[in-house]
């Protein structure tokens, strides 16, 4: 680590790292304040296909976190940025709750497809419409490619299988925008005026948070809260830069060793 440059930015995962469902990780608000007292830029980064920034912000405010909307970067933001960069008009196969994050985006006469977790849209006619757009050359942008998720009534299909279906039908590859994709982390740092080597990522998902961040040259800190299970840190090579108890411990380490 001798050649590392001074730390300029810290990316923090939300669910599982700052809070677990409707409870804050003990000491997390205080730790965030300590981090804010330094000059580092802070971004809150999360994979979500249905919660808009506004939804996330409201939950965090209820838990008394000092966070502003422009500090939040989600996989939906990443999708929106890509849509704007490509200057396309997307057919939005996303949950209605995610629509506010696409406000102002032109969607008439679509020439692109954005796909998240949207069971209500995943029926034959809608997917066939998306398929025909893709055959005509529209790009396919996937929020993420999770295979399935856990619901109260058991396992349920995630967006991944439907992305795969459209990829196979059109012999094309989706651009996946969420963690652990490289572009996700690079986009989150955009506007911060710093390089990945000057940033650290804190999260509870060894592969998606820590592995993804380290793949672009950031330092990754794994916290043992949220979805963390014993020995998760062994899942990636090279291993996490640091594995620690929780977000407050991660902040302490940053204050003592990286600044």
């Amino acid at each position: 680590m001798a050649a590392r440059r001074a730390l300029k930015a810290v990316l923090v995962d939300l669910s599982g790292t700052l809070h677990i469902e409707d409870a804050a990780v003990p000491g997390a608000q205080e730790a965030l304040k300590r981090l804010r007292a330094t000059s580092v830029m802070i971004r809150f980064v999360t994979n979500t296909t249905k919660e808009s920034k506004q939804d996330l912000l409201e939950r965090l405010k209820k838990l008394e976190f000092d966070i502003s909307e422009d500090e939040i970067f989600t996989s939906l933001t990443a999708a929106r940025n890509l849509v704007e960069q490509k200057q396309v008009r997307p057919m939005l196969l996303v949950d209605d709750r995610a629509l506010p994050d696409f406000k102002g985006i032109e969607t008439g006469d679509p020439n692109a497809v954005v796909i998240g977790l949207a069971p209500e849209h995943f029926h034959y006619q809608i997917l066939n419409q998306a398929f025909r757009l893709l055959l005509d050359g529209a790009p396919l942008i996937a929020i993420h490619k999770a295979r399935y998720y856990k619901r109260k009534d058991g396992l349920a299909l995630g967006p991944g299988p439907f992305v795969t279906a459209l990829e196979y039908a059109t012999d094309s590859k989706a651009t996946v925008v969420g963690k652990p994709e490289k572009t996700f982390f690079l986009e989150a740092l955009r506007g911060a005026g710093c390089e990945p080597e000057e940033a650290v990522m804190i999260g509870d998902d060894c592969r998606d948070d820590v592995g993804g961040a380290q793949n672009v040259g950031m330092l990754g800190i794994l916290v043992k809260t949220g979805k963390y299970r014993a020995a998760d840190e062994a899942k990636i090579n090279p291993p996490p830069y640091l594995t620690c108890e929780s977000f407050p411990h991660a902040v302490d380490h940053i204050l003592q060793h990286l600044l």
Partner: protein
Amino acid sequence: MAAWGERLAGVRGVLLDISGVLYDGGEGGGAAIAGSVEAVARLKRSRLKVRFCTNESQKSRGDLVRLLRRLGFDISEGEVTAPAPATCLILKERGLRPHLLVHDGVRSEFGQIDTSNPNCVVIADAGEDFSYQNMNKAFQVLMELEKPILFSLGKGRYYKETSGLMLDVGPYMKALEYACGIEAEVVGKPSPEFFKSALREMGVDASQAVMIGDDIVGDVGGAQRCGIRALQVRTGKFRKTGKRKRRVNLGPAHYPEVTSDNIWGSPFQMFRV
């Protein structure tokens, strides 16, 4: 062009794909492709043996044949090799009880099959029945099995209806494969077993048969892998890849013997049928 005669020399039997070659499905049953009714009639009058080899899995064989007869084709149920009956044979052989993710139109083919307490999943072209709920149900059945078995009736990417191109069973098969981390067993074209049973039923060796279809993978590639010559027609799903259109690379390169505008293009004049 002069090579057609040589390329098709010694052919004694013709395997005909149905959708995209004889007709395009759609509103009110669909429409015959121009010239196909006459072409089938002329083939049947010739010395050539004819068998229909289809991946149709949304309709029962009976319904398909009734529809084709209504469109003017000379065809009977006994002349059709289709994946649903082939699947039933496999299920019986292996003592499997399927959860069926299929269109109501083909359910009658599985009438004699025990579907209680399922220990495998059968997926066919379910069309409108490919809802999230139905896909999720099939997924849950697979995930509860110690050794998940998935049968797919064909694995086509899409087919043509009169209203445009439609997603076929293949994309949905891939979705379940990806979700469960498994590989499906394909019953239908391009599986060699399926072509072999069609040849057996026609009573012609692979080297003496030609397959006519619109699908470069399912029809052309599948037939050629069995040593059957293949002819691709430019009807059905056949697409010219324009500048803006996505070029669908349909897998390892298959080179049909001849590509013709319809099955009554010049290649068949070489037979003098």
